């Protein structure tokens, strides 16, 4: 059981000051140009209110869109390699939702299941997460269908739940306790009642879905669902749990660098062989891979889903593909 405390809004604002005094930057959802996205903030007043979620995911804090893996210089018969150190700034992610906080475990599973990925780990080490439980939701949310919930503590170091005059705070991890230790006087004994959390009814049973997917592999539903898919990859780029990446070279005759960049199994070129052969030649097969990787391969290999039910993919999709609906359809009784 986590330690429970009460934080008034004034105390939380003071905590922001203490965090910055400790040399940490704070990233939080802010309203800018009609969008709510993560940006550096100094005060609680700068943090957006009444948002359901940011459109983009928080994974960029530990897995940048593009990052350098190494660089080199070249001369005839010579190459000098230069290792790359990730720039990992002490960072507090404030105000992300429980679904998204849970997504970091899916990234960690891939980056560290075998050999360890220094770039991801260096940033994760420097990251602390103060999640805020959801009192609002929208139609794209389906956390409760994939084992999460609007008050889930998974992935957060401290989870705040809105309450009269401020927040209830659950201090969950060593990183959370280290934050509390910066200003213990701000954490009052828990007293007030938490605000009612959003109600997100479960649309499907994810364990039953995982169990059913093997028999659905050759079902026509994947082609049907993907007919309108543009293969734009927006779903993967906003997904807190999508890890797939590309490695590309930027160079001239004398020097170059090797970069890692986000990629997507939805792109036609993702699996294209140099010979022209493509193991997943149609969008239906690529859409199926997305679903199966998250709901069959992940449970099988890593003992967790590769989806946190945040609904960002659904909100971002330019042709209104809806993951929750598509998965619910996959669980519909088979017509005989």
């Amino acid at each position, binding site marked *: 059981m986590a330690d429970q405390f009460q934080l008034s809004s004034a105390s939380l604002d003071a905590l922001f000051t203490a965090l910055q005094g400790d040399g940490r930057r704070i990233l939080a959802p802010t309203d800018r140009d009609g969008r709510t996205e993560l940006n550096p903030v100094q005060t609680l007043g700068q943090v957006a209110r009444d948002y359901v979620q940011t459109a983009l995911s928080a994974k960029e804090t530990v897995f940048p869109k593009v990052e350098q*893996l*190494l660089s*080199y210089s*070249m001369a*005839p*018969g*010579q*190459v000098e*390699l230069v*290792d*790359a*150190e990730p720039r990992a700034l002490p960072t507090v992610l404030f105000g992300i939702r429980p679904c998204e906080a849970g997504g970091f475990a899916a990234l960690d599973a*891939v*980056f560290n*299941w*075998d*050999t*360890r*990925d*220094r770039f991801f*780990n*260096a940033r994760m080490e420097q990251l602390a997460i103060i999640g805020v439980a959801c009192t609002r939701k929208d139609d794209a949310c389906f956390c409760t269908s994939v084992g999460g919930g609007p008050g889930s503590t998974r992935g957060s170091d401290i989870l705040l739940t809105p309450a009269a005059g401020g927040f209830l705070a659950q201090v969950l991890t060593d990183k959370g306790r280290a934050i509390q230790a910066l200003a213990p006087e701000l954490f009052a004994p828990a007293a007030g009642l938490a605000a009612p959390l959003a109600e997100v009814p479960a649309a499907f049973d994810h364990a039953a879905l995982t169990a059913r997917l093997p028999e659905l*592999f050759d079902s026509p539903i994947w082609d049907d669902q993907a007919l309108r898919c543009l293969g734009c990859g927006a779903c993967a780029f906003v997904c807190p749990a999508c*890890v*797939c*990446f*590309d*490695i*590309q*070279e930027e*160079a*001239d*005759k004398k020097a*170059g660098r*090797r970069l*890692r960049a986000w*990629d997507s*199994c939805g792109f036609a070129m*993702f*699996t*294209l*062989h*140099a*010979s022209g*052969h493509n*193991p*997943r030649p149609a969008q239906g*097969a690529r859409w199926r*891979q997305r679903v*199966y*990787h998250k709901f*069959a*391969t992940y449970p*099988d*290999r890593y003992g967790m889903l590769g989806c946190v039910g945040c609904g960002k993919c659904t909100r971002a999709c330019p042709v209104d593909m809806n993951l929750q609906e598509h998965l619910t359809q996959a669980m519909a009784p088979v017509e005989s």
Partner: protein
Amino acid sequence: MSEQNIYLPHLMRIAAITDEAPGVRTFRLEFVDEAAAQAFAFRTGQFGLYSAFGEGESTFCIASSPTRKGYIECTFREVGRVTAGLADKEVGDIVGFRGPYGNIFPIEDWRGRNLLFITGGIALPPLRSVIWNCLDLRDQFGDITIVYGARTVNDLVYKAELKEWQERPDVNLVLTVDPGGETPDWTGKVGFVPPVVEQLAPSPDNTIALVCGPPIMIKLTMPILRKLGFAPESIYTTLENRMKCGVGKCGRCSTGRSYVCKDGPVYTLAELGQLPAEY
């Protein structure tokens, strides 16, 4: 303080270049760093990521045998940006290598068994590593039969080694070229690999079959082997899925529950039956 960078390649010097066939070359590579050379070991079937600095990385098997120490060899066809960059290199130039990656051909389990290699075109390199590994341990295996085909006589790779295998009494080499690919002095067979195998009708008794080739060759050869009585557990092949990281992270080679770069590239036909046919 920091963990090591798993994406950092070894620097390798090109010790020798062999032109094998039109557009196909073999590099012999030696480690620039002596300590890296000492620490390096691999087993047959494994692969690596080869860098043409300035262009990027490509995935090829290690085409030499682990019994031949001090170097590795790779054989590639010039088809894209990286292989064009590699093809520009000369002896003494530096390339990068990450590896060895992936699983192995379990040749220790094949002691006393007959070996049947079936391969086509540029897919001989992964089997060439196994062939030399087994020939260097010749006493441990029974009959060794190699069926190798290419589009034309000129497209056959490792021509000097084919000659050597042809002359060895302890190797049965069957060469074939596609109809129209023969030369006037061609003494091998004319025909595609699968019908040549069917005609040869090798016995499945105590025999391991290794099949590497273009997808169509594999697709047509497998049923013939099954009809001849080879068990799915006795037929080995390698998958050639596109890869970027080689270490089970980038997601590109993911096929069902398998990362080809970690759980492969070597699979038995029985194991392939458990995977979706996305390769």
